[in-house]
């Protein structure tokens, strides 16, 4: 009886495709951008199916937060998307501030100076994040040199961040009710002027370089061949998977929270939202890897524009922290989303009136974008999988949290 069962099970295990090869791509692989594991079912070089397995960088951020006071959670948000940590700080602080504002007895307002500093630093952080994405994407496609160019420029930005908060990667700079005062930047002081001058110097140096990079990589015909018309994500598909940020705009959907649901002081600045269109001269189709990549290149220019406007206006004087005695939000819940470099970063917070949240949930844009990988990669080649992972620009720290 037992033996018959065994034979039966063996027969069931026989697969219709006899020459299918299962390959584990990752968690240790040069171009899975961290510790993503892909289970590839290959027919020669053609991918029948690519199943992403996540969780190798899971640190229980959400559960951990339930035992921490709100200001203590901010350093944990740094570790979510460590490439754009400023924006993660900001997203969380915005959500908490919104929750605090529900209590009308304790009125407070984030000072003007802090808002300007937040936009300034976060847009620079967006440039740093997109630079990393540009560099690593070049390396995924096989061009090593853009990677080092990107890191050279990003290094200058990191030095700037170091000047305001002392850290290069995990900043913990933006606080609830303002920004950190650890390294004081007195209004009108020489230190402030030097800082702004350095930013301007960087922008003057960096802005022409974007065009150089476009010449070097974006318009390179091999790069174009590798990325154009590959893994086309239609607008419907992008919306149904919840892809946001450059991935959504790369699919031709004109949506940017900074413009459509302006938070902070974004409504005061003049900037365009790059949205992908067909480029028949080159062969790009809306929603392909090239468009997603190109949106990031264009966004860097827009970020430069925003920072230039701040520099032209100058930072307003005044304090950088609101007068908050203690962060003790009223009973209630909030979901607030902001536009991080990788898309819509949302925080859902349930408060019971104590200094610690009852529940905290982070909505990761990378996680949503990664979920589309399985559908995008079907029937493509191994090399295309790398191109897709690079173009949706995931950071595993944020996917796993």
């Amino acid at each position, binding site marked *: 009886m037992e033996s018959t069962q065994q034979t039966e099970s063996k027969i069931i295990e026989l697969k219709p495709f006899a020459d299918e090869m299962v390959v584990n791509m990752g968690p240790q692989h040069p171009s899975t951008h961290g510790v993503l594991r892909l289970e590839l079912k290959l027919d020669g070089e053609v991918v029948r199916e690519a199943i992403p397995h996540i969780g190798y960088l899971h640190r229980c951020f959400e559960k951990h937060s339930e035992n921490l006071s709100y200001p203590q959670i901010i350093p944990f948000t740094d570790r979510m998307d460590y490439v754009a940590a400023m924006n993660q700080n900001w997203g969380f602080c915005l959500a908490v501030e919104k929750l605090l504002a529900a209590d009308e007895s304790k009125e407070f307002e984030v000072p003007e100076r802090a808002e300007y500093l937040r936009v300034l630093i976060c847009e620079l952080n967006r440039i740093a994040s997109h630079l990393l994405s540009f560099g690593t994407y070049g390396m995924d496609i096989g061009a090593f040199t853009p990677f*080092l160019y990107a890191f050279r420029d990003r290094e200058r930005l990191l030095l700037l961040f170091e000047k305001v908060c002392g850290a290069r990667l995990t900043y913990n700079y933006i606080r609830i009710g303002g920004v950190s005062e650890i390294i004081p930047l007195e209004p009108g002081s020489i230190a402030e002027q030097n800082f702004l001058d350095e930013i301007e110097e960087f922008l003057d140096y960096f802005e022409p370089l974007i065009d150089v990079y476009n010449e*070097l990589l974006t318009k390179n015909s091999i790069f174009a061949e590798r990325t154009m018309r590959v893994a086309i994500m239609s607008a419907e598909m992008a919306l149904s998977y919840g892809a946001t940020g450059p991935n959504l705009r790369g699919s031709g959907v004109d949506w940017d929270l900074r413009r459509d649901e302006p938070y902070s002081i974004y409504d005061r600045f003049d900037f365009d939202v790059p949205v992908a269109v067909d480029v028949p001269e080159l062969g790009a189709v809306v929603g392909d890897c090239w468009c997603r990549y*190109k949106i990031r290149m264009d966004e860097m220019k827009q970020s430069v524009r925003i920072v230039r406007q701040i520099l032209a206006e100058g930072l307003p004087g005044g304090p950088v922290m609101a007068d908050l005695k203690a962060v003790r939000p009223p009973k209630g819940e909030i979901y607030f989303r902001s536009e991080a470099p990788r898309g819509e970063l949302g925080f859902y917070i349930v408060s019971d009136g104590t200094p610690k949240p009852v529940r905290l949930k982070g909505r990761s844009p990378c996680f949503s974008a990664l979920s589309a990988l399985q559908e995008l990669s079907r029937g493509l080649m191994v090399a295309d999988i790398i191109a897709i992972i690079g173009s949706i620009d995931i950071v595993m720290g944020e996917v796993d949290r």
Partner: protein
Amino acid sequence: MSDFRAMFVGFPDFNVSENFFPDINLQEKLNWAEEFIQNVLIPRLPEAVAAHFPVELGTVLVMFACAGIFVGVVPLLPLFLVLAERKVAARFQNRTGPMRVGPWGTLQTLADGIKLIFKEDFIPPQGDKLLFLLAPYIIFACSFAVFAAIPFGQNILVSPFNIGIFYIMAISSVIVMGVIMAGWSSNSKWSLLGSLRSAAQIVSYEIPLGLSILTVVMLVESLNMQEIVASQSNGVFSWLIFRSPFTFIAFFIFFISSIAEVNRTPFDLPEAESEIVAGFHTEYSGMRFALFFIAEYANMFAVSAIAVTLFLGGWEGALPGYDILGGLPGFVIKTLALVFLMMWLRWTLPRLRVDQLMNLCWKYFIPIAFFNILGTGIWGLIFPEDTLVSTIISCAIIYIGLIVAYTIAGRTLAQKPEPQPS
């Protein structure tokens, strides 16, 4: 009649059965070594030793010494080229490259080599041990055997084969065997993917490579490397690249195909580190890995040297009668220039995909190469000898062709608007 046929088909008119290896006459070589011992060595020795000198053993030893010079010098090339590659890459990327070991990091490769020798020689327990051990030696041996037929100078040559270029093609094709063996025996799926990519790539690109060599052979009517060089002795315009418009195209096909043959960017799919980790040598460590590495750089130098020999005058100079870019130094300079070009491409371009790689070969290079052969045949019919008239016409056609290509490319680029999704 036979003359006409040779001219039309363009093939050298030799009888295979009679003189297949006319110059590899072992007895002749032995005679040479024996003469050297009898006439040069023995008179200089003390009489007591000379009387009992084992001439036969000495002969063999002299031959080994000659081979040793060759075998000893050629492996130094990769040592130098690896450092050159790292320095060139560093300059392209605003870095300094290795700076710590020796002055300006010149001994870095040596240090790396010593490190690799002392590393654990890991053999995958589930793999095919014999093939795994054998593969690096096959690749290493084949890539060095190619040097036997490359003329570095008028007299600096291991063996003046009658069929030199054919021998090079044959030997360098065997490398793919080693690659497949390495990939298969590693018992790793990445290695297998890499080795199969490599097999497909090398086998495909051998066709345009061979066809572009054929255009040269048709014009020179010889497979002998020294004769090919000798036919380019009248200065830069007698170099085969300028001999006819078709050889000009053939040079570029040859050079690009050679880049694919030696697995370098933009054709480095077999070892595409961002896709398949390290391709066929993923599982190798220590000295076996170093052998792959050395072979890769030796190959790079070898294909550049072949391109120089076939198209850029070999060791012949750029001006007739003057030794500019001639002799051994000239040959090495020209070869290193091509090597530098390969490095330049590597640090600038991304990598192709497998299907695009095959498209480039089968849809573009092979048809163009066949067209080249047809054209070279007609050219040989019109200009049986390399005269001043044929040179002027050839250079004029190349010049006009380049201008037309430049204008068309320029117009296309000018029309192409800045892609600006807004």
